[in-house]
């Protein structure tokens, strides 16, 4: 099985789409790309999820929420946490990226551009409030493990940026 592809039974997609990241409620776990497989095997749904960051406390909650959502749809389930292949921000879907931006979190750039911003202070990230690109890195580490803190020098609003991983 090609591990970089998702194997998800289409019947389960609407159920899994109801589950969101507890720290970013607008983003469904499907759009975040953390569900790597979900198949009904002998009447039990076997779900594989992969953590965004190793220490992300949201993963335990996400596992529980998936179990609950499936239970509501009358499925028993087993949730496995897999590490390989490692999650990457490339797996966030276009819908997910839009949801992030609307929520006030700038979506991750490509890896090279991300480096330019975080290392060399290039101004490539658009402010989620006024869309200006006149933004400045305040800290490489933000309110959660996956975010960096930025400030817009035009509208002066601080905002989060989802770091490239």
């Amino acid at each position: 099985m090609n591990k970089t592809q998702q194997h998800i039974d289409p019947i389960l997609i609407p159920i899994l789409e109801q589950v969101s990241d507890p720290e970013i409620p607008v983003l469904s776990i499907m759009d975040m790309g953390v569900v790597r497989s979900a198949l009904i095997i002998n009447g039990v749904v076997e779900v594989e999820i992969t953590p965004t960051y190793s220490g992300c406390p949201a993963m335990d909650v996400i596992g529980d929420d998936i179990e609950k959502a499936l239970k509501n749809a009358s499925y028993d389930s087993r949730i496995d946490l897999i590490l390989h292949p490692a999650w990457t921000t490339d797996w966030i879907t276009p819908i997910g990226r839009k949801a992030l931006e609307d929520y006030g979190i700038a979506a991750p750039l490509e890896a090279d551009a991300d480096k330019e911003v975080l290392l060399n202070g290039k101004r490539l990230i658009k402010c989620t409030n006024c869309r200006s690109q006149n933004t400045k890195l305040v800290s490489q580490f933000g309110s959660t493990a996956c975010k960096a803190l930025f400030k817009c020098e035009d509208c002066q609003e601080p905002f989060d940026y989802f770091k490239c991983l």
Partner: protein
Amino acid sequence: MKENLYNYILGIADNSLILGQRMGELCGHGPSLETDIACTNISLDLLGQVRSYFQYAAKIAGDDRTEDDIAMLRKERDYKNVLLVEQPNLNFAHTIGRQFLFDVYHLAFLAELQKSTDLTLSAIANKCIKEVSYHERFSSDWVKRLGDGTSESKEKIQEAINDLWTYTDELFHQTKADKATVLESVGVDVTKLKDDYYKRVKDLLEEATLKIPDSKWFQKGGKEGIHTEHLGYLLTDLQYMQRTYPNMEW
């Protein structure tokens, strides 16, 4: 139980656990809000990585011990972390110096561990290296900023590097578990990382306008469970809940 593999995993994980606990001490005590959050984020990453390692170790142990037992219920002599990571947070320069001297090693180590023939270890390394590259950026940026900053910041970071230098050589010592796992292409041969490590560290210290310590005397013992006096105090904090209220859960 594969004893060498078990001990090997603990050797890797204990470095992250103890350093994670040290960085966690900065929670609410960082010199600025941003550095406070950064240090605790690094701590969270490290503790998250530790969970992956200890879950795997618990599986190898094959008895009823859990990741929490391994983290919380060992005695001081059973911890296999290097002396460097248990050194206390004397001031921000010390915290940064310790982090930098470990991060450069950690990054190089994980790059090699990704090639391990043990698929779980390779997957964990593959995951951790992405996070650790952020740590290394943070700590090396701060070494440069402090070194090339005011005369006071320069003095403090130089003092920290001088003090901590004696703990760097131990990173490249091999334990029995190291040697056994290297033979099976599971473990990383740390002796091969040494030259690149000192080159990278020296280049960065020069960039930070700092002097490279010339001391040739190096401390060792952590990997064999012989620790500095600081570890006991750290463990008292770390293990307090489990020792006071055995088997408690959140």
